[in-house]
């Protein structure tokens, strides 16, 4: 069922208060609740958590940009080498080798996330130009 409001953009506003969304309308100078009961009337767009990898579907792709999939291998290896370094804490030379391997894999991961990810995920490319106003509009 649709609402009875023709131009919600002129009549309604929203704001966040803690864990709650407020949708309000201006009514005789004050903000008040709306007088509309509409199924699925409000559509909230947000950045949220991705879906976890389903246990029964290992062929599923991780819910993240494909450019990061290879780097995920490096991240996990970095963590596992760190675990192994901890297991060999009594043998400092061996632990040092595992630690340096861990750092190397983490360096690859961080490099991908910090330097390459922003350029891989954007859909805008090429140089940007300042376009001056037409002479007659100055």
């Amino acid at each position, binding site marked *: 069922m*649709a*609402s*009875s*409001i023709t*131009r*919600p*953009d002129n009549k309604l*506003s*929203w*704001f*966040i*208060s803690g*864990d*709650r*969304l*407020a*949708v*309000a309308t201006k*009514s005789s100078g*004050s*903000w*008040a*609740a709306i007088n*509309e*009961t*509409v*199924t*699925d*009337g*409000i*559509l*909230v*767009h*947000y*950045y*949220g*958590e*991705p879906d*976890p*990898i389903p246990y029964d579907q*290992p*062929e599923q*792709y*991780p*819910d*993240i940009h*494909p*450019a*990061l*999939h*290879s780097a*995920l*291998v490096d*991240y*996990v*290896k970095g963590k*596992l080498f760190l675990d192994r370094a901890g297991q060999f804490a009594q043998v400092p030379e061996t632990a040092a080798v595992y630690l340096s391997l861990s750092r190397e894999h983490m360096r690859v991961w961080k490099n991908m*996330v910090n330097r390459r*990810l922003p350029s891989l*995920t954007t859909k805008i490319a090429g140089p940007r130009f300042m376009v001056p106003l037409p002479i007659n509009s100055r």
Partner: protein
Amino acid sequence: MSENAKSFAQIFQEIQQVFPDAGEAYVRRILDNIINEISIERNLKKKETPINSVDGQMFYDLSVLGPAKIFRVDFMNDDGDYVLIPRLLDGEFIRKWDIT
């Protein structure tokens, strides 16, 4: 899916070449944690969810969404289309002093 994409099975296989004794559940947990963390930190996962509007109710609970950064709210018009509504930047002040 692009050719760079790797399924969980492929990722796990690559890890097992170096760590044959790595547990699947442990690797899966490490992956889920970092994917969640990086997605929230870098705003990588856009989602949308509909909510029923209720007559006379101003506040709607969002805790079911988990960690979420709301960037846009639409309201259904009389044609059944969703229309972007503006955000009140000083909502806290209005909530305390100006709500009837």
